[in-house]
C-alpha cells in the first residue's frame, strides 16, 4: 500500500501542555486507519492536525512535519481551505446545516464555484448514493436536514464531506452518538468508501476498530505505542501496554 500521509517527528503543544510527543507515522492510502487510546492520549489531537483544525485553537504550537502526498501541509504555501477540501471531516455529533438535505450537500460544491444546477444535482445524488442515503431521502430532498434521524444525519454529513471530492475522510468518534443499527450502517459504509478514500478514524470502541480498520494505532500520553495491522494488534499485540489497554486493564 502506498503512503498517503507521512507524519514526521510531530510535536504539538497546547500552551505549555505537550499533547503530541515526537509522533512519526505513515498512513497508507485507500485503507482505514483507526486511532485508539484512553481519553486525553492525543488521538483526536493528531486527527485534527491532518486538516489543521488545531489552527483554530489559540496557543497551539506545532513542530515536525505532516506530509500529504509529499507536501508539508503546515508550510506557508498551503491554502487551508484547499487542504480541508481534500481532507474532509465527520464529527461525533451529526452537525447538518440548518438547510435542506439538498443544500447541505450542494453547499460545499457551490462554495468551490459550481453553479450549474444539473451538475449540482449530479453531485448531490452521487454523494448521497455513496453515503448509502439516497434511497431513503431521494423523494424529499427539499426537507430540512433536521427532519432526519441521528444516523441519517451522520450519513448526510458524510455525503456532505464527499461532495467536494476529498482524498481523505477523517472521522472523530463518528458513531459514538448513534444507535447500534445506525452504527452498523456507518461501519458498512466505511468499508465501501475505503476503495475510493483514505479513512482515518478515532474511536473509543475498540471492537469497532477491530471490525472496521485495516491498521490500528494505539496512543498513550501523546505517544504512539504501537502501530500495526489491526488483526495483529488485537490478537497478539507486541507492547504490553497495548495488551493492558485493549484487555481493559486500564483506560
Amino acid at each position, binding site marked *: 500500500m502506498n503512503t498517503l500521509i507521512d507524519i514526521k517527528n510531530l510535536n504539538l503543544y497546547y500552551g505549555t501542555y505537550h499533547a503530541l510527543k515526537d509522533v512519526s507515522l505513515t498512513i497508507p492510502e485507500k485503507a482505514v486507519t483507526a486511532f485508539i487510546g484512553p481519553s486525553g492520549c492525543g488521538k483526536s489531537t493528531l486527527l485534527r492536525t491532518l486538516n489543521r483544525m488545531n489552527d483554530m485553537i489559540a496557543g497551539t504550537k506545532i513542530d515536525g512535519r505532516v506530509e500529504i502526498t509529499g507536501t508539508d501541509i503546515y508550510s506557508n504555501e498551503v491554502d487551508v481551505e484547499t487542504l480541508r477540501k481534500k481532507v474532509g471531516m465527520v464529527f461525533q455529533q451529526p452537525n447538518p446545516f440548518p438547510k435542506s438535505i439538498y443544500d447541505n450537500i450542494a453547499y460545499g460544491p457551490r462554495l468551490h464555484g459550481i453553479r450549474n444546477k444539473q451538475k449540482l444535482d449530479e453531485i448531490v445524488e452521487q454523494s448521497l448514493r455513496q453515503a448509502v442515503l439516497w434511497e431513503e431521502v431521494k423523494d424529499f430532498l427539499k426537507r430540512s436536514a433536521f427532519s432526519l434521524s441521528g444516523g441519517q444525519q451522520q450519513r448526510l454529513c458524510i455525503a456532505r464531506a464527499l461532495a467536494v471530492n476529498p482524498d481523505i475522510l477523517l472521522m472523530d468518534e463518528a458513531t459514538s452518538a448513534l444507535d447500534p443499527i445506525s452504527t452498523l450502517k456507518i461501519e458498512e459504509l466505511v468499508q465501501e468508501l475505503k476503495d475510493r478514500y483514505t479513512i482515518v478514524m478515532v474511536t473509543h470502541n475498540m471492537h469497532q476498530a477491530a471490525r472496521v480498520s485495516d491498521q490500528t494505532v494505539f496512543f498513550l500520553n501523546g505517544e504512539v505505542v504501537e502501530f500495526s495491522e489491526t488483526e495483529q494488534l*488485537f*490478537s*497478539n499485540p507486541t507492547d504490553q501496554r497495548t495488551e493492558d489497554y485493549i*484487555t481493559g*486493564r486500564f483506560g
Partner: protein
Amino acid sequence: MPRKEFDAGLGELTKLLEGMGNATEQMLKESIDALLQIDVNKARELIQRDAEINNMEERILDVGSKLILTQQPVAKDLRRILVAFKISSDLERMADLAVDVAKVVLRLEGQKLVKPLIDIPRMGETVQQMIFESIRSYLEENVDLAYKMSKDDDIVDQLYSQIVRELFTLMVEDPKTVSQAMLLTFVGRYIERIADHATNIGESVVFLVTGKRPELN
C-alpha cells in the same frame, strides 16, 4: 478494577480445566488398573463416569461462551478462552479413550491375560505424567514445560511400537491369542492417542503464551 467479573470468569474456567485434567488423568490410571486386574466392575464404573467429564466440557463451553458474549475479549484474553475450549475438547477425547480401554476390559471378562503386561502400564504411567504436566504447563503458562512434556510423546510412540511388535509375534506363535492380543494392541493405540492429545494441550499452551501456533507432534 474494571475487570473484576471478567477475571472471576477466567478464574472459573481455569479451575474447571484443572478439575477436568485431574479427572481425566485419574480415569486413565484406573482404566489401566482395571485392565491389569481384568476388573469388570471397575470398568463399568469408569464407563459411567465418562458423563461427568462430558458435563465438565459443557460447563467450560458455557462459561467461555458467556465470557465471549459479555466481555468481548481480545488478545490474550480471547486466546485464553479459545484455548480452554480446545483443551477441554482434548481432555474429553482422552477420557473417551480411557473409556475405550475400560470397554476392552469388559470384553476380556473371564479370561486370563495371555502375557504379563509390562509395557502397557509403563506407557500408561508416562502418559499420566504427560497429562499432569500438560495441565500444569497450562496453569503456570509454562512453555518450557509444554515442550518438555511433548518430548515424552516419542517415548510413548516407541513403547507402542514395541507393544505392537511383541503382540504380533505372540499372535504368529500362538493363533489362539489373536483375539486378546488384538484387543491389547487396541489398548496400546488408545493410550498412544491420549498422549497425542496431551501434546495438543502443550501446543495450546504455547499458543496461549506466544500467540503463535507451534507443531509439537
